Structure formats: C-alpha cells, structure tokens
C-alpha cells in the first residue's frame, strides 16, 4: 500500500496487526529484558524465552539507553526500499552502539546524509514508520543527531 495504490491489497504474507500491538513496548521505548538471575541485558526483549547466559526464564523489563554513537552507516540508495518505506527512501541506515553497550540497527532522520558518519552522536526520537496491514500508522524509535 502506498500513494499510488491506496486500497488495501490482501497479501498472504501480511503480519496480523496484533503482532504490532504485542511488540509496542520495544518499538516505542526500546524496551528489552534484564535477566533477574544473572543481570544480563538483552535487546530485543527475551520475555518468555530463555536467558542464553544462565538459562533462567525470569526477566524484568529494561529500557535501553536513549543515546549512543553510530558504528557504521549505509546510505540506502540501492532502490530496494523495504515494504512500506518507499516514500522515505533514501534512508540513512545505521548500526548504533547505545551508551549502555546494547547494539541496534536503526535509522537517523532530520539531517543531511553527510552528517551521519561512524562516531556521530545520536539520540532516540519517536517517529512515524509505515502503515500496518490494517492501514493504521505504526510508530516507533528512530534516531536524530545529538548535538
């Protein structure tokens, strides 16, 4: 679905919107897990899974640091945007080392491409993403420059 074809097209491989809802805490606040037994932090959340370090299944919610540094950047100019992201292309896709040591994949917005380099300081921002399969807008984390 995009501006050219605004009607919903039934697709076999569509995610149910319930999935988007289930994962809202991670998407809105970068909420992962902290293992109650060994204290290790995990992102994405390992809630209801097993801690790879100590095999415990008891976790408490953990919100990742909201500031960090760009490790490496891809200027997405290849012409293969992900479904639902075509109008946002080209995106500045990055690996970020957060200040608490967690590494994530995300994108940097609201700046020029040349402002995003290895070592650039960034902070989390709450932004509109794509439309869910039911047509509602999905929101979640992106990053902006932390000047």
């Amino acid at each position, binding site marked *: 679905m995009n501006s050219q074809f605004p009607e919903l097209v039934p697709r076999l491989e569509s995610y149910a919107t319930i999935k988007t809802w289930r994962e809202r805490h991670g998407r809105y606040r970068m909420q992962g897990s902290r293992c109650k037994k060994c204290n290790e932090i995990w992102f*994405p959340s390992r809630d209801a899974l097993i801690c790879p370090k100590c095999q415990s299944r008891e976790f408490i919610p953990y919100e990742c640091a909201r500031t960090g540094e760009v490790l490496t950047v891809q200027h997405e100019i290849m012409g293969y945007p992900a479904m639902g992201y075509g109008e946002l292309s080209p995106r500045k896709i990055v*690996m970020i080392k957060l200040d608490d040591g967690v590494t994530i994949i995300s994108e940097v917005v609201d700046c020029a491409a040349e402002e995003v380099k290895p070592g650039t300081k960034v902070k989390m921002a709450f932004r509109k993403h794509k439309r869910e399969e039911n047509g509602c807008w999905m929101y979640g984390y992106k990053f902006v420059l932390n000047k």
Partner: protein
Amino acid sequence: MQKPNFKKVVLASAAVSGPERSVLGLGYRQFIMKTVLEALDKAKLTVKDVEVGSISYNERNITEGALGCVMADALGMVPIPFVSISQACAGGAICSDIIWNYLVSGRYKIGIVLGLNKPDNFDFRDAMGPIGNYCDYDFMLGFTHENYGHLRSEWYKQKYNYTDSVAAKWAWQCHWYARRNPMALANSGPMPTDEQLNDPGPAGYRARTATGRNMASCLVFVTEDVAEKLKIEPTYFNVSYAHRPVYIGNHFGYTGDERFAPYDMAEQPAIKIAAEEAYKIAGITADKIDIAQVHDLSSYDGMMALEWLGIVPPGQGGKFTAEGHTSIEGKCPTNTDGGAIAFAHSSAGGDFSSKIYENWLQLTGKAGERQVKNPKVTVAQAYGTHHSLDVVGILKK
C-alpha cells in the same frame, strides 16, 4: 564432539539446472525433474534406487507447508522418507547433513538432496521483505537482509581499512571464472570493466554484489560400499553447521556464549565452529584446502568466509584477494564456479549444493577451462539468514 565411528559417505553424482534466469512455463515440480534425473542417471541409478530424500526450499517462494510429501509424490518415490527444510540460503547444507546422518548410521545407503529456488512462483516484491529470519525490531521497522549485508560490508571495510577496489577485484575474479563455466549466469558477454566494478554509485554496488537466479539442484549421496559397486571414483563428503543470534545487533559482543563474546559483525565465529567440526570429521586442516567455494552475497562476505574458514587470518581476506590468491593459479582458487556474483545466487535452491557440485567437478577433473590443477581437498561454505546459520562442507578425494 566425538569423531564418530561411521560409514563413509560418497558424493556419487550431482546436477544443477542451467543458467536460464526465468522458467516461466514450468511449475516447481516440473522444473526440478530434469535435474534429479540427470544426477541419478550420471550415477547409474533410478528413482526406485533412492531410499531417502530431502529438499531445501524457501517457503516465501514455494508456498507449500509440506514440500517433502509433494516431492516424494512428484518423483514417484512414495513411500520413502522425504524431509523438507526451509532454512534460507544454506538450507541445502541442512538437507545434506540429514542425509549424511542417515547414511553414516547405516540406516540407508542411497539418498538424494534437492534444492529448489523459483522466485517466479511468488510475487517478488512481497516475498522480498520477509525473506530472512527477521525478529522483532528489524523487519518490522523496515530493515531487510539487504541492509544487513550492506552494513556488514561497510563495517568490514571500516574495520580493516579497505576500499571498494578489493571488492571490485573479487567480483572481477568471479566473472573470470564464470566466463569459463557454461552453467554460470554470467557465462557470456564482455568482462565488466574496472570503471564499472569501481563505480561508487548503485551500479557499482550491484556489480560487487550477488545477483539472483532460479535453481534446481540434486546431490546423490551413497555409502562407500555402494560407490564401489557402482564403480564410482569416490569423493568423500562431510558437513557441519553452527548458529549465531538472529538479531544483527547481537553480532557485536554477544554474551550468550563465550565463543562469540569477543567478536563483531565483521567476524564470523560460527563459521569457525562449523569448520573446526567439519575438518575434524573429515580428518583435514585448513592448510590442506586446495579450493574454496564461499558465500559471497557481497564480495566482503566472501573475504570474511576465507578468514573464518582459517584459510587466511582475520582481516586478511581483502589483501589475499587483491594479491590474486583467489585466482586459478593462486594459493586458494575461490568461487571457481563464478560465485554468487557471476554464477549467481539461488538461495535454498543451490547456494550450498551448487558449491558442492562445483567442487565435485573440480575433484573429478571435469571443470573444463577453469579446472584447478590436481585438487584433493575442497571446502564449501554457505550462510543462511545473515550468519544466524553457518555451514561448512568438505568434499575430498
């Protein structure tokens, strides 16, 4: 891992489909028939001789929930066991591992491994996004396996201070081999120019990165005694695989297993784990390897593979490539079929099996113009879903 006391497994024969980019007139069952029959025929076997089968596919382009059942039926092999595996690009290796286990245990003596990739079976753009092992916050937030690959390449270059000229050299070498391989997608046409391969824009990136193709592949494995009966020159097969976390952020200092903790996205410890086991079972060491087929979805992926297979030290893959050691006269001729860049990338259809096929041609002296002189030990490496699955297969005389 104990060195098992088992029957030796021989690759009796292999076949891959031709380089046609599109096979629109055939459904996937019809498409794979020619390849299966060709492989069996080369080994002087028929469908009735096969005791166990397996097939690797990607359920994003073959929308079947039980492909093993479909293939046993299509091949007229009912009621033999037929296992289907959907484990991305390296799925063929998992199928090979299953058949290897059936044969080494002595339970069966003749098994086939099929691979099938037919993206024209499914709307490509729709299929593209979800292909891979994406977990909570990557695919959903608009990051695909192409972003993973591109970021890994950028990190590798940055970490070891390489420029795209080494990737251009890698891609050029792949094209050199492909021009000498009639089964390669890039078998004809002029060689790419230095200017094209070093282009800093999207065209250059594509030239240094994999291109896709349809693929049907078939490997025929038998136990050593059957090979002897069939008067087959034995090439012995062993395989191993290991996993890495699915989320790309966890490829930096993963604390879930101490073997991964020191490493980052440009390092491939799961290849090392798989390689060590495969080498041990096969009774070889990395320095004995004469030919390598590695999974180069980007040229840098190929270099990383050479490093973590133990063929060159970490960080030296780019230098090794630039110095020409992957060429037919080099220290380790690499991707002699043309690799994912010029033979082309077929995911579950052949990204592992086509490499085994090429190594088999090389070991049996049937590689024509790209024949490496007298190889004895070959390695094939493939990854699935961005190194959350890493496999290593050894084929040797």
